[in-house]
């Protein structure tokens, strides 16, 4: 089943995606790696694929989990910031 979720971009992900949020239709349940792949491909984030945290509804997603998404869930794409 596909659900529409809200994707929030931070730091470098925001720069590359060119926006701070977007609506994305993804299948659910979905494995972490599949979800990451989906987001990375859709928003051209391949360069920073290994440097991203995904958080669903403000909670960190573990790499080996299956994620159950509901419509309207918020997925935050968080690379680290290093400036100061």
């Amino acid at each position, binding site marked *: 089943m596909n659900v529409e979720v809200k994707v929030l971009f931070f730091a*470098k992900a925001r*720069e590359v995606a060119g926006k701070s949020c977007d609506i994305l239709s993804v299948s659910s349940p979905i494995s972490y790696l599949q979800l990451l792949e989906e987001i990375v491909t859709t928003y051209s984030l391949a*360069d920073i694929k290994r*440097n991203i945290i995904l958080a669903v509804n403000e909670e960190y997603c573990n790499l080996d989990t299956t994620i159950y998404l509901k419509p309207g869930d918020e997925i935050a794409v968080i690379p680290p910031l*290093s400036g*100061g």
Partner: protein
Amino acid sequence: MPKQDFEDLKLEIKRLREELHQKEEFLRERQYKKLQGKNVYNDQFTTEEIVRYSRQMIMPNINPHGQIALKNSKILIVGVGGLGCPAALYLASAGVGEITLIDYDEVELTNLHRQILHSESDIDIPKVESAYNSLKRINSHIKVIPLRLHANSLTIKDIITKNKYHVIVDGSDNVATRYLLNDVCVMNDIPLVSGSALQMEGQLTVYHYQGGPCYRCLFPVPPPPHAVTSCGDGGVLGAVPGTIGVLQALETIKILTNSSGVLSGRLLLFDGTNTTFRNVKLRERNLKCDVCGENPTVKTLIDYELFCGSSSHDKVINIDILKCNEQIDIIDFSTILKDNVVLDVRPKIEYQMCNLPNTVNIPFTEIEKDDVFEKLNKLFKNKLADGIKNVYVLCRRGNDSQRAVSCLKKKFSESPIIFYNVKGGLHAYSKFVDTSFPRY
């Protein structure tokens, strides 16, 4: 004014400042003498200290025990920039007993919009010295130790073996130093109060605190260097690192006073564009983490520049990808500027900020676009008709312009146009041709 006069004036100002400082101290000592010694009302603090810290000490959250803890604390702040300045300011004001500052840089004009411990008269002096002076003016009761050095495995190891810090505050500006400080903190069991900021965004969390995750638990591998933006390139609004730096001070005070509610296992994302704070719950410590896991593979400090593939500062490293005959020296360029085609490939905003007359702005990021090709094609055709076939490519530091030249050469390989890179870009122009061109 001759250069020697500048130097003399600088020395005189320095001497007068020292004299002023001594007189202020002298006055303070006389005026408040009675308040500064031991008193019969409290055996831990002087009268002045009690009055000074009273507004925070009367709260249950701090109370006299917390204030004593602050007084007996030793902390290390790495980076006295946009984050380190506000963090140090509040930590010194709050009465943290000993604050060591590390930074190698000198104060520059481009720092003043956000690095609030430094003032106009501090330009060209080491940041740690400027910060030391500012902090001591605010609180003469605490010990401030300025260390002008580059934080790397060797220097940090030396400092850490000689001192026991209760907290390290990461106010650095690059990836390599962030991994270095993380590993130092894990290996020496010190909480790391980590802040970072760029443009309108900030991040804050406390690593390696009471069994919580470390930086490597979350980000096991560093980002590729080309995917990292520095404040010098991306820009930053001063109030954004200001916000994060102040919060770093707050977290540090909570840790030092053994308070609850420390931002560990959570990551605060601050977005200054719409003033939102998001608190993301993080993972637990990764038992397979390379440094804080059960079987760590990183047991001593490594070469972090090698590990990250980037240097431990945020300065730009210059490239050199063209042949000699494809480049023009800045002095030679300045004499022919008027009658030639000059493409300035900086971003539009930077071009709007300042530009040389008779130049055309073609941002490097748009150089591959079809409409840009058409525009250039037309421009070159007109110029060729006038007998002009040399095109000079210019940018901020002379790096993007080299990339632009190689790209344009391919795109216009059929055309008789010859592209030249202007060596050193506008930085060189400002340095060697006209100092009134803003070097940013």
